[in-house]
């Protein structure tokens, strides 16, 4: 493997006719990093991945490995010369070749000796716990086993970059978790630089060093799993990582208190207090202040886990009526409406059981409430 320090994608754009699938995508990541592209289907994450491999030609932008330009939309290194490895959602194993021949495919193309090929194939199959499966055909194996073969087929070549396109999406829930653990272990052992594409936030949080959240081809936020999970940059990211309670409202008062921004927001469900720890140079802070001054609507973002059944201290108490209760083992997932305001929904978790139609009080700590100024498209401005 040719050594490198950093891969950088600069202003990469991919257009299919009028449709912009990947829009001005810039990202830099170092060797050995595990980067995840996270987003709903149609957000351009797979297209971005395919553009980086060279399988889809880019419309504009550049891709560099250190200072070697591998793609600038005019001249591009073909995919087979990039020394990248790719794992597909549908495994894409060659059905006419045995498992051993599948893993040996790339090695044989590199004209390695027979003994060396065999030794490397055996080693790769051992790494993915498939010793002795070499003479089977892919069709004789389960989905999880097939995907491990696909991984072995890539890592045996020691790629500079390993790209995984929703590799676990075709597997059942249990296998998905198992293989996820294995991917993590494998990455910790081999330290292969990896880009992983998924729509599953659990996978993204569990595996990644860095998460890139995408929407409509645009990067929404880049950050560590902790950052993305606890400090989403905008309402979209918040919604995608599970801040289900998004209530629209207007800020009635806004004041600085001990470094935090204290806001009182009038929502349909009542008055809500939020204590925002957005730092001085955080754009979210500036946009909240601007929204307050202009009297523009804002939206809340609160995790169901942060709302507790029972009255807490302070003002953030809602009187609700439960209209959907799902038992989930360790807790109940409750969907309720606020008394006197049917259209305001509260989603929360509760350990104690609440029965259908029961009235109860719920409250949320002001520290757990995030506020975002609504983006222009949510206000119907700038978007048809």
């Amino acid at each position, binding site marked *: 493997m040719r050594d490198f320090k950093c891969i950088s994608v600069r202003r990469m754009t991919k257009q299919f006719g009028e449709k912009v699938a990947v829009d001005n995508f810039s990202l830099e990541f170092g060797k050995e990093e595990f980067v995840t592209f996270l987003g709903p289907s149609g957000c351009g994450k797979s297209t971005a991945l395919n553009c980086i491999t060279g399988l889809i030609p880019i419309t504009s932008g550049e891709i560099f490995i250190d200072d070697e330009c591998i793609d600038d939309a005019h001249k591009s290194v073909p*995919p087979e010369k990039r020394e990248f490895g790719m794992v597909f959602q549908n495994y894409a194993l060659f059905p006419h070749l045995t498992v051993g021949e599948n893993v040996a495919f790339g090695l044989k*193309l590199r004209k390695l000796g027979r003994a060396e090929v065999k030794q490397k194939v055996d080693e790769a199959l051992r790494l993915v716990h498939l010793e002795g499966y070499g003479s089977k055909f892919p069709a004789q194996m389960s989905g999880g086993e097939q995907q491990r073969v696909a991984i072995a087929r890539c890592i045996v070549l020691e790629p500079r970059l390993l790209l995984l396109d929703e590799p676990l999406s075709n597997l059942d829930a249990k296998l998905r978790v198992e293989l996820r653990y294995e991917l993590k272990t494998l990455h910790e052992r081999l330290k292969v630089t990896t880009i992983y594409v998924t729509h599953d936030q659990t996978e993204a949080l569990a595996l990644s060093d860095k998460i890139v959240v995408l929407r409509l081809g645009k990067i929404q936020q880049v950050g560590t799993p902790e950052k993305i999970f606890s400090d989403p940059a905008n309402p979209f990211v918040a919604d995608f990582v599970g801040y289900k309670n998004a209530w629209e409202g207007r800020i009635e008062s806004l004041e600085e208190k001990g470094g935090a921004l204290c806001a009182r927001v009038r929502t349909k469900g009542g008055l809500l207090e939020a204590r925002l720890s957005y730092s001085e140079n955080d754009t979210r802070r500036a946009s909240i202040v601007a929204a307050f001054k202009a009297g523009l609507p804002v939206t809340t973002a609160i995790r169901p886990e942060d709302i507790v059944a029972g009255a807490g201290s302070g003002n953030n108490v809602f009187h609700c009526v439960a209209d959907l209760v799902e038992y989930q083992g360790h807790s109940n997932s409750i969907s309720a409406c606020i008394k006197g305001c049917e259209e305001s929904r509260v989603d929360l978790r509760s350990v104690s059981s609440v029965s259908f139609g029961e009235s109860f009080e719920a409250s949320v700590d002001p520290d757990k409430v995030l506020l975002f100024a609504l983006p222009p498209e949510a206000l119907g401005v700038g978007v048809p």
Partner: protein
Amino acid sequence: MNAAKDWTNKGGALVLLVPALVFIVLLFLYPFAYGLYMSLTKADGTLSLANYARFFQDARDLRTIGVTLGIAVPVTLLAVGLAVPLSYHMRRGVPGERLISFFLIVPVTLGTVLISEGMLTFMGPNGWLNQLIMVLGLSQTPIRFTHNYAGVAISVGLQGFPYAFLMLLGYVSGINPDLEKASQMLGANKWQTFWKVLFPLMVPGIAISFCLNFVMAFSVFPSAVLLGQPSGPQRVIAYAAYQWAFEKFNFNAAAAISMIMAAIELFVIAIVLAWRSKMYKGASIVGKG
């Protein structure tokens, strides 16, 4: 519901097979068996191998095997050989695909006789094709395309190629496109990807379309009669059978020739299928993904 279940369990399902069985027996098994019986008897009804012996001793008849193979094998190889790269090229669809398919299917629907008649005038010594060739200065004298080997071969090829192409197109466009991407990502260029991944996966389709094409070409009759010299160099085996049956009214000899035709066709098919199973082992193994 129980009644229905019992009905299917107690062999009632076999009743549903009856129409198909009657069809096969009446229209295939009986004529075939009758033909076999005729080929093994003399005109007076006594059992004998004389009809076969006569064929193999008659140099003029024996020659028809070589003549027919000489048309069928190269034409089939060429048709399938052209269909492979063309279907590969069109596997993801190309602009004007419907139009291309239309022009490929037309010769099949028109039938051999109409095509041959058309070729006779179009490609004949005074036909448009030769006039064009002479205008362009490609040749001073008309080129013979009819009443010779070329005429028969072109006509048979025109009939066979669409089948080969359409069948292979179905095969190759059914191959998971991610396999090509995977191969490329593992370091294979387009050429290597074709030979190491796509071609082996196309082998079953190639084998089947070769077999179908070969059988059609080997039983060539109207093309040979209309566009060849059926009494001379293009005396194909089907024509020999026809002459024995309807010129010499010896149906037993004709039946023997038909049986020999079938044997040769089966032999070639066996060779092709052996090649197929040698090339492609994985296909026979099915399992859940």
